[in-house]
């Protein structure tokens, strides 16, 4: 029952996030998977080609007085380049890492998707949910996740994760979105959606 309720919350919130991306790019974006689970965080590596795969990660912390969670938007490196090209309508001529405008574009895509997700979540938990300024990292997935999880003060390797995979309909771009609430925040969600 709890998992079903959370899956529905994840479905609706991620639908808002991909709608935001779709409106920004003026392209159809589909949600491929939404899953809810308690998983060892290293399982995320399996979605890519292991911890050494190069990725771009946009991450923010969503929070209200008694609620806190981290959102990650992860794109394999070539996908982040394609996403920037789709958003700006221009082919990227230099390395994305050296181009401030491209980085800003990717950060803003994360800002809009996470903002839309949190707007929906805010309705479910009946709280105003703010978020931090989006941060962006380009590195091997393992290195990025290690540093982010230290920032998050995640003390163990397991976390409750709402996962969404999405693709552009023409298959030219795919990405993953993860929302990791703290355990106290999970209780807030359960109380507000009336599942004990």
């Amino acid at each position, binding site marked *: 029952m709890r998992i079903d309720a959370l899956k529905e919350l994840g479905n609706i919130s991620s639908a808002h996030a991909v709608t*935001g991306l779709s*409106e*920004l790019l003026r392209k159809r974006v589909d949600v491929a998977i939404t899953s809810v689970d308690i998983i060892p965080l290293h399982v995320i590596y399996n979605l890519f080609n292991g911890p050494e795969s190069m990725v771009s990660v946009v991450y923010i912390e969503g929070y209200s007085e008694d609620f806190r969670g981290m959102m990650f938007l992860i794109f394999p490196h070539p996908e982040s380049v394609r996403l920037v090209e789709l*958003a*700006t309508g221009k082919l990227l001529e230099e390395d994305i890492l050296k181009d*401030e*405008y491209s980085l*800003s*574009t990717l*950060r*803003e895509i994360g*800002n*809009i998707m*996470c*903002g*839309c997700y*949190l*707007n929906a979540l*805010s*309705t479910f938990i009946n709280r*105003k*949910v*703010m*978020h*931090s*300024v*989006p941060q962006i990292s380009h590195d091997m997935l393992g290195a990025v996740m290690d540093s982010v999880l230290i920032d998050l003060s995640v003390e163990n390797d397991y976390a409750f994760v709402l996962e969404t995979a999405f693709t552009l309909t023409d298959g030219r771009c795919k990405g993953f979105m993860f929302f990791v609430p703290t355990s106290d925040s999970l209780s807030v969600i359960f109380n507000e959606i009336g599942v004990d």
Partner: protein
Amino acid sequence: MKPKVLVVDDAIFMRKMIAEILVENGMDVVGEADNGSTAIERYKELKPDLVTMDIIMPEMNGIDAVRQIMALDSQARIVMCSALGQQALVQEAISAGARDYLIKPFNPSRVVEVVKKALDHVPTA
């Protein structure tokens, strides 16, 4: 005379997108700022007819910047522009003095409609 607009957003991508829409629709983007503190300084310096203001920005957020700009100039015309569109936040921004609220992502016609309405609502005397 073209209305003078100050565009405030920490993302250069979004500043460029908003500026292009406004310029194409007969407005003069006289300046940009990437956080709330800089926005206040640019407001004092440029005295724009209208400000578009993001909320989540480093150093100072957009709602605090609206409060400070309104304290300097109670006639300031500010339109919020954020991906966060929660009702409580919209109300907070309007209470702080914002004239209207655009939720990202937006289409150009919505931006123009809201900006023009905000400009119309101020006495021209």
